[in-house]
């Protein structure tokens, strides 16, 4: 990274469209949401300054904690189940001499093409009790009751599975890309030195994919913590006993269903702070690892 040019206005002009749009449609509303988070309002005519009341209530709001818990469960599922599976798929697809890898890559990516409405309908058809495909299969195979209510008792696992189907292929492509950085010769050398597959993975593969891996983990965490549309469409809300309530669903419901925009903004800002802490933490960790 040597001499970068100092060329007058050019960089500003290149950034101008982004800056204008970003300023008008992100920064301005964002600023407004700061103001909102200190107010209780209902419509332009009814707005009262309440200071930090919204945040104070939030800290003692059992529903918010429930939402945080659910969201963290989903995030854990994404990071500890979905990403390892994506990495596994990528490593299998990356084997030298494997035929049909392009077709398989397409296959695993294909769920990205369908919308969430379809995913929601499909999930409900699979996991429904009695008529659901899953229960009928389990009933026939191991005699589990046809009435096991997945969509009442196992909402987060069901969501994790649904998201797995949709996003595992996407993350697989990231890992596949990362695996191109692995030095084949090094792997071979390790193999000749008598390193088993486990050691080879830890000593050669993992360090090589670590930079991309960190990025994918971060993206996955940021995305999972903002989970909203899938459960919202699938459960038409937050599910029985709010077992499917996520932080952003709660934000949305507070703002657009209860009409409490101040509270919704407070939830949004707490989430943003949480995400910022995670992102900064990840970057620090990555720097540490590189040093």
């Amino acid at each position, binding site marked *: *990274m*040597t*001499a*970068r*040019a*100092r*060329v007058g206005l*050019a*960089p*500003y002009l*290149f*950034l101008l*469209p*982004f*800056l204008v*749009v970003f300023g*008008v*449609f*992100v920064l*301005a*509303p*964002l600023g*407004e949401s700061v103001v*909102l988070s200190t107010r209780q309002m209902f419509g332009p005519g009814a707005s009262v300054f309440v200071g930090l009341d919204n945040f104070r209530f939030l800290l003692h709001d059992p529903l918010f904690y429930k939402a945080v818990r659910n969201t963290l469960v989903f995030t854990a599922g994404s990071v500890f189940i979905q990403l390892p599976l994506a990495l596994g798929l990528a490593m*299998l697809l990356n*084997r030298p*001499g494997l035929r049909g890898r392009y077709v*398989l*890559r*397409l*296959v695993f*990516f294909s*769920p*990205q*093409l*369908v*919308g969430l*409405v*379809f995913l929601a*309908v*499909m999930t409900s058809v699979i996991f429904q009790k009695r008529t659901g495909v899953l229960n009928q299969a389990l009933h026939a195979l191991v005699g589990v009751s046809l009435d096991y209510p997945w969509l009442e008792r196992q909402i987060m696992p069901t969501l994790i599975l649904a998201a797995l189907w949709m996003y595992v292929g996407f993350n697989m*492509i*990231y890992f596949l*890309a990362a695996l*191109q950085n692995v030095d084949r010769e090094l792997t071979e050398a390790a193999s000749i030195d008598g390193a088993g597959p486990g050691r080879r993975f830890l000593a050669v593969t993992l360090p090589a994919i670590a*930079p991309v891996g960190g*990025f994918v983990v971060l993206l996955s965490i940021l995305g999972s913590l*903002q989970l*909203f549309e899938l459960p919202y469409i699938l459960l038409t809300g937050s599910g029985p006993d709010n077992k499917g309530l996520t*932080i952003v669903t709660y*934000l949305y419901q507070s*703002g*657009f269903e209860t009409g409490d925009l101040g509270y*919704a903004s407070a939830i*949004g*800002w707490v*989430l*943003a702070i949480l995400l*910022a802490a995670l*992102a900064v933490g990840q970057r620090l960790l990555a720097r540490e690892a590189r040093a």
Partner: protein
Amino acid sequence: MSGRRGRRWVHLLTYAVLAPAAVVTLVPFAWLLTSAFKAPQEFFGSMFLPRGDGFLGVAWDRLTTGNLTRLFRELSIGRAMLNSLFLSSVTSVLATLCCAAGGYALAMYRFRGRRVLTWVVLGALIVPPPLLLAPGYQVLYRLGLLDTYSGLILPAMAPAFGVFLFRQASLQSVPPQLLEAGRLDGCSEAGLFGRIALPLLRPMTGAFLLITFLGVWNNFIGPQIVLQSPEKQPLAVAIAQLKGVYYEDYGLLMAGTLVSIAPVAGLFLLLQKDFVSGLTLGAVK
């Protein structure tokens, strides 16, 4: 593990894992395809195709194209498709241009405010979009953009995520020396971007076009709020409306999903190569 034989076993094992995974991934598509041709009363009668005494033991005569014809006759799906193509393509082209230019500038120039702007872009990644829904709606109203396509396209033109991706890709694949050489040859800054950077960023461009296109194509909450006139609504809204409150007409819903997948599947096939290499560029660092 020794020699060829071991390797062949590993290969077989690999297929033994990949094949079932591929089947699991594709089963919902088979289900989608068959459900789209089933009448409502058949929907739960069979998993895929109704059994009968036709060819291959399938009751072909009980399948119907009624869902598809209803889709085109009762709902103005053709118009919705046009709207979707318009919104998705225009948004993705404009967003890609904005992000490519922005990301390139952040990566390749030293200028006052560069660090701050980089942090702003990174910071924007953590803003949950619904937080902006209500104040954003007001902005659209003040600018007179409600019920216009611009009201959907403009805000989607500059996703910070895209700028970030293009910054990474530029750092990775645009050598500063090359730009210097171009400058010495008397090339303008815009020319450097167009002639040197854009071609080098082509995989990222393809990947980002596709990501944005898919995102806009499947988004229905935004258009439902911003667009008011029914003839402006895109396909995703039409399909979301099919998931009714009092009745779920699965066959129609599946037919709609099928119709909406076809164009994006075609684009994906065209762009998939860029897509993979593009993501590689974006993910590094």
